[in-house]
């Protein structure tokens, strides 16, 4: 049973997928331009149950079970947005987005620019992503760098239920296309207090989720809780104080918040589960180097997934974990 509080600031304890579902329900209630489309999102409520109850509530014209094509889902959503709707396109797993990648990169990201602002398509594309669920090569990958590399897209990744609801509602008020990558590993594991009333977590703002003095750990998605565990270990076992920053929006990046922290601590570890080469961490490290070089006390560290395809049996070797983040932090602290 969920914990419920009453009153105008009422909250309840939800997991991330419930928070996303609650956000979709409120968005569709509040704005009849919001439609949801994707594979199995209607009668079934989505393979992760994020769209549960929407079909019954809003019917098949606003909750659309599409044929099985990512290009079709995203392309059709683009057309709907051109006409003035606010479509939410669900890609069942981020690993399967590639047939729709052309629609995202060539069309969704570029309509506003190529038309001089005459045509815009504020589509919200939701995609469960990331490893740690024994999903093997094709149910585990982290493709955020592909999208972050494309001008015109907002790329956002929540790390907890509160932010997931608030970022989703913010995305549906935003006039740009938003790629919302949802860390499915913590869809159910991440639970927290979520306000009942609609609210927005602004896109483009990072969050300092644990203040600290000696070192900055930068993470997003499921890696935020790994970073927080590492910070706790650094404090309890090594007496060092780590600040943890949840990037939340990769594009546009809140470099100001990151740089303020690193300029103060002089040391940083960047954590993500995507492969290392040209991973988003490379951009973070380069930007921090440009912004904070004269205050750095140690080389910037990266803890990332491997430059291999994503494995099945040995995924726990592939994924960054707390001991690895602690080791990188200690290297940075003793350099």
């Amino acid at each position, binding site marked *: 049973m969920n914990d419920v509080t009453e009153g105008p600031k009422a909250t309840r304890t939800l997991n991330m997928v419930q928070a996303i579902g609650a956000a979709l329900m409120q968005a569709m209630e509040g704005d009849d331009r919001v*439609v949801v489309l994707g594979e199995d999102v209607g009668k079934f409520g989505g393979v992760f149950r994020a769209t549960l109850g929407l079909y019954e509530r809003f019917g098949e014209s606003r909750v659309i079970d599409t044929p099985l094509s990512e290009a079709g889902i995203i392309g059709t959503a683009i*057309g709907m947005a051109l006409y003035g709707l606010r479509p939410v396109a669900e890609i069942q797993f981020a690993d399967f987005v590639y047939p729709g990648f052309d629609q995202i990169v060539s069309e969704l990201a570029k309509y506003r620019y190529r038309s001089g602002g005459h*045509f815009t398509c504020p589509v919200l594309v939701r995609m469960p992503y990331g490893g740690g669920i024994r999903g093997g090569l094709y149910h585990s990958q982290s493709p955020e760098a592909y999208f972050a590399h494309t001008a015109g897209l907002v790329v956002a990744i929540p790390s907890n239920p509160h932010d997931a609801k608030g970022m989703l509602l913010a995305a549906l008020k935003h006039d*740009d296309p938003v790629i919302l990558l949802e860390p499915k590993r913590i869809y159910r594991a991440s639970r927290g207090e979520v306000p009942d009333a609609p609210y927005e977590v602004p896109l483009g703002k990072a969050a300092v989720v644990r203040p600290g003095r000696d070192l900055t750990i930068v993470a997003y998605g499921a890696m935020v809780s790994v970073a927080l565990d590492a910070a706790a270990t650094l404090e309890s076992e090594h007496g060092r104080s780590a600040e943890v920053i949840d990037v939340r929006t990769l594009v546009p990046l809140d470099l100001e918040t990151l740089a303020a922290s690193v300029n103060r601590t002089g040391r940083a570890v960047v954590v993500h589960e995507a492969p290392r080469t040209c991973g988003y961490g490379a951009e973070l490290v380069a930007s921090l180097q440009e912004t904070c070089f004269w205050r750095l006390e140690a080389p910037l560290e990266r803890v990332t997934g491997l430059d291999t395809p994503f494995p099945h049996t040995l995924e726990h070797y592939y994924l960054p974990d707390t001991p690895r983040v602690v080791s990188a932090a200690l290297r940075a602290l003793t350099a």
Partner: protein
Amino acid sequence: MSSVSPAESSSVDSAGIHPVVAGAAPGLYRVLADGPGETGGVLAGREVPSDETLLRLYRAMALVRAVDERMITLQRQGRISFYGAATGQEAAVIGSGLALEATDWVVPALREGGIALLRGLSLSDYVNQLFGNGSDIEKGRQMPCHYGHRDVRYVTLSSCIANQLFHAVGISLAARLRGDDTIAVGYMGDGATSEGDFHVAMEFAARLRAPVLLFCQNNQWAISTGVRGQTLAATMAQKAHGYGMDGYRVDGNDVLAVHALTSHVVAEIRRTGRPAFVEALTYRVGAHSTSDDPSRYRDESITERWKERDPLRRLRPLLEARGLWDDARDAAFISDVAERLKAEVQRAEADAPPSIDSLFDDVYAAVPPHLVAQREALRGSTAHLKASSH
């Protein structure tokens, strides 16, 4: 939605093993006679539209012809970077374009710029886009012929092939959801029918019952690849059958046929809320673009035969027989268009390029911090470029 699955709806075939027989290849709908010595004739039983419509169709086609000829020259002179003409295809362009309501949406491919003009895009906006100057509503971001304007519901195209067909599907679904009696038309060439997006767009249109017209200008060439290099299907129209959609086939050089058929199909789409597919059979008598030389890969004697079926040439005798057009009126029309084009080109060419700052506009609704930083950095490092720009 039907609750009967395809398996349940099929009866057992007792005749043994044989392939599925699809609907027969549809015949070509035609209004204007096309045989030797028949030019200007109207086939028995076919209706001819009003004088006003006849003139409108002819003038719009003649405008496209004149604009294309002028722009190809400008490209050869190095004054614009590219041009994709609709020469020989004006009937498919204008005949279908005029069958739409102002409230309908056009999602074009490369050769439908004439529809933008037909729907009210000003010649100034058209020419500014070709020059990519400071007055270009696209701010000089796209190659020529990538027009678009919200006021005339002509969606700005990308250069990608078949990508746009989904957008027509989505627009039409959104219009229905909003309760608007609006359809969308997605245009494509024959080459586009080989792209995955074509097939999925057909599937989505049919399955989601989108009030959309998917219109193929089969000009039989995708750069150097002939239509038989794309498909072994006898016609494009019969492909629609496989998706559970009605497919039509029309003589794409007969503007009265294209106009009549498209008007009929559009009315059916509005009435039933179901999609349809139209193949307009025509021929690219010119090059793919100004970067192409067709004599390297095709028999131009066939092209000559298609030039005899020129859409303007086929319609004009009918107009002359009705006293609607003659050499004097033709000369006056041509010289008027030439004058207007001359003035527009002179003005557009003299216009300043877009501002450097405009590079950073419209990437997002608001310029984000990293682009503010890049804009500042670029402002400080452009001195060596200014002399060479335009």
